[in-house]
């Protein structure tokens, strides 16, 4: 008996160790390294002496870090709100419509999901070209007689972030759609039939029966949205650049972190201490808000 258990334990260790090593080396180690680095002062790329929480204090309370940090946080919040509101509601709508087996549902299921498979960098690059003053979007507007709506989409402070968010929604909306579709499809048929027999309308059916039963998927999508919104980087990097141009209007904590930790040609020398502090703040925020949203939605969950 003991022998069997021991060999079982060995097998478990055999299969788990490689994964643990990868997680330890590429996720846990960097996390603790950045915590460690954030507690030191730096001269260019050389670590100097222990300064405690000084880097965090500078990040949160002194010019220019404070201004840049809260400006970036504001944009991340904007990302989160608009993604939740537009992308996830659209996803819910699409998921619901697809589950109704309307004509062409199979076709649209695939069409919605195709952009999800594209590389995020390729999407950013292509849409960056479409949104140029002489690009596809403006040409289309001109074609349909809306030339007065032509804009340098990525060049104006009030339009740049919304444009990038819309591109990202275009790319990603298929994912929540499919998750919600799968959730709605797994709602027991008898519940729905019973409701139909009672003469419940489509609207009431959705809100009173389907919605409470798909809350677990909503939790997952919300957590993913939070993580995604806090980690926005590639979209900005490919479409408006590391500096969050124009005039920091598209800056997020991701681009701010990269610029600060590694430096850029124009932004100047790397500041690894402050950069590590930003990295740690991103981590803590992601962790805390994800936990919170799991907690909140968990309470709304309904068991059959």
């Amino acid at each position, binding site marked *: 008996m003991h022998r069997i258990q021991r060999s079982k334990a060995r097998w478990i260790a055999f299969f788990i160790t490689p994964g643990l090593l990868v997680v330890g080396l590429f996720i846990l180690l960097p996390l603790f390294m950045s915590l460690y680095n954030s507690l030191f002062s730096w001269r260019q790329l050389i670590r100097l002496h222990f300064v405690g929480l000084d880097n965090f204090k500078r990040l949160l309370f002194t010019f220019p870090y404070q201004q840049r940090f809260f400006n970036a946080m504001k944009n991340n919040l904007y990302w989160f709100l608009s993604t939740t509101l537009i992308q996830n509601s659209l996803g819910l709508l699409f998921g619901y419509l697809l589950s109704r087996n309307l004509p062409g549902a199979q076709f649209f299921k695939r069409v919605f999901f195709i952009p999800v498979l594209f590389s995020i960098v390729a999407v950013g690059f292509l849409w960056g070209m479409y949104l140029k003053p002489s690009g596809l979007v403006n040409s289309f507007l001109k074609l349909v007689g809306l030339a007065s709506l032509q804009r*340098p989409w990525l060049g104006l*402070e009030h339009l740049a972030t919304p444009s990038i968010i819309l591109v990202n929604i275009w790319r990603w909306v298929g994912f929540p759609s499919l998750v919600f579709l799968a959730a709605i499809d797994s709602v027991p048929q008898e519940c729905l039939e019973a409701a139909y027999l009672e003469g419940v309308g489509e609207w009431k059916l959705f809100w009173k029966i389907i919605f409470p039963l798909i809350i677990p998927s909503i939790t997952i999508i919300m957590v993913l949205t939070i993580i995604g919104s806090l980690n926005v980087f590639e979209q900005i990097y490919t479409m408006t650049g590391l500096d969050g141009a124009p005039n920091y209007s598209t800056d997020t904590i991701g681009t701010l972190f990269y610029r600060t930790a590694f*430096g850029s040609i124009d932004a100047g020398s790397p500041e690894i201490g402050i950069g590590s502090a930003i990295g740690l703040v991103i981590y803590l925020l992601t962790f805390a808000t994800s936990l919170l949203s799991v907690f909140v939605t968990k309470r709304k969950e309904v068991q059959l």
Partner: protein
Amino acid sequence: MKKHMLLILLVALFTASMLFAAGAQEAQTTQAKAKTTLEFWTWRPEDIDFYAKQIALFEAANPDIKVVQTALKNTEYNTILASSLSGGAGPDVFQGRAYGGLVTFADSGFLEPLEGWMPELKNYSANALLGATSPTDGKIYGSPAVSQTVFMYYNMDVYKKLGLSIPKTWNEMISNFEAVKKAGYIPLGNGAKDGWCLETLLGGMGAGFYGGSDFYNAVVAGTKTFEDPAFIRMIEQMKSLTKYMPDMFMGISYEDMRANFINEMSPHLIAGSYEAAFFKSQNPKLNFGIFAVPSEKATDPAYVSVYADMNFAMNAHSAKKDAAIKFLKFLSSKDFGKSMVTEMQMVSAVPGVDASADPFISRVLELQKNATPYLFLVGFRYEQPTGSSLWQAAAQGVMAGTLTAKQAAKQVQDGIASYYKPFKK
């Protein structure tokens, strides 16, 4: 039993693959012993052919050395170089930035001080050496390669067709803009989507308004600030150029700007001397010339902004310094400098290189008679927030109309004053 067999098989497979990997590594090192291989990195993928040709020349003269060239994307170069060097790896010889960009690597101890290896460095011009010296310890960490100059490119064919001549005053330039606009061209091809292109714009048109080197020396010394009326007026003049810039200029990126000029849609472009070779390669029929943007009065100097751009540097931890210095000396030779001039249309920093064979470079040297330091790069790129990043963001605000010239000047001044000691007095 079966499970055990499987385990043994797996372990055997793992160890075998490690053995093979080790074997492959060994084979590589024995090959390298016969010939020293130098890693050489650049941020100019567009110049791969040029460097390949030069490397072939070097290898022919030094048959025991092989140079492997790696060209990385300009904007990612510093990050990749920094992480390789701090990991103890990286190239033996590489293109290094100037000024603040050099200091990052020099003060981290990654660059080999070069005076000991190359005594000839003392013959270089003081301006060139300024970009290769760390202010921290005063040592020279790079062999200055080229200087860059910012000025106005113009399309000579369009000027001829419309009977225009090189303007001698700011107003004459504006009337040239009006004339080409009437003829259906975009008067000035510059755009504002990429912040750094607005620093170039400043370098091309600003100095005449803020007062060139006198102003530069005054702000560096802290006796004048960026809220000086002359500097604010310069920003207003820059903003006034927007009516000659392309439609929706806030969305016009660097690539679009270059395309505007290369495709002859716009006969003017404020840009750096580094563009000339690219223009020629993209449109050999393009007949372009250059002039310095004039001041308001014809008697005032027409300034161009100049900066040291590139230093060839050596990795302080290279195991092959003897070979590396040979290659570095080759890159600092007059012959190499001459090839830079004739093939790349770049102004070589190597003393004694004859540039007169190339009409473009001799014209650049002529304009350099009224040279002034490229304001934010030369003076204010050593600490965060750099003058460059402050200017670029503020200038985008001005061009888009979300900031006034005064607000922009204050933003730049406050940012630099947060750390710059002469402003704190």
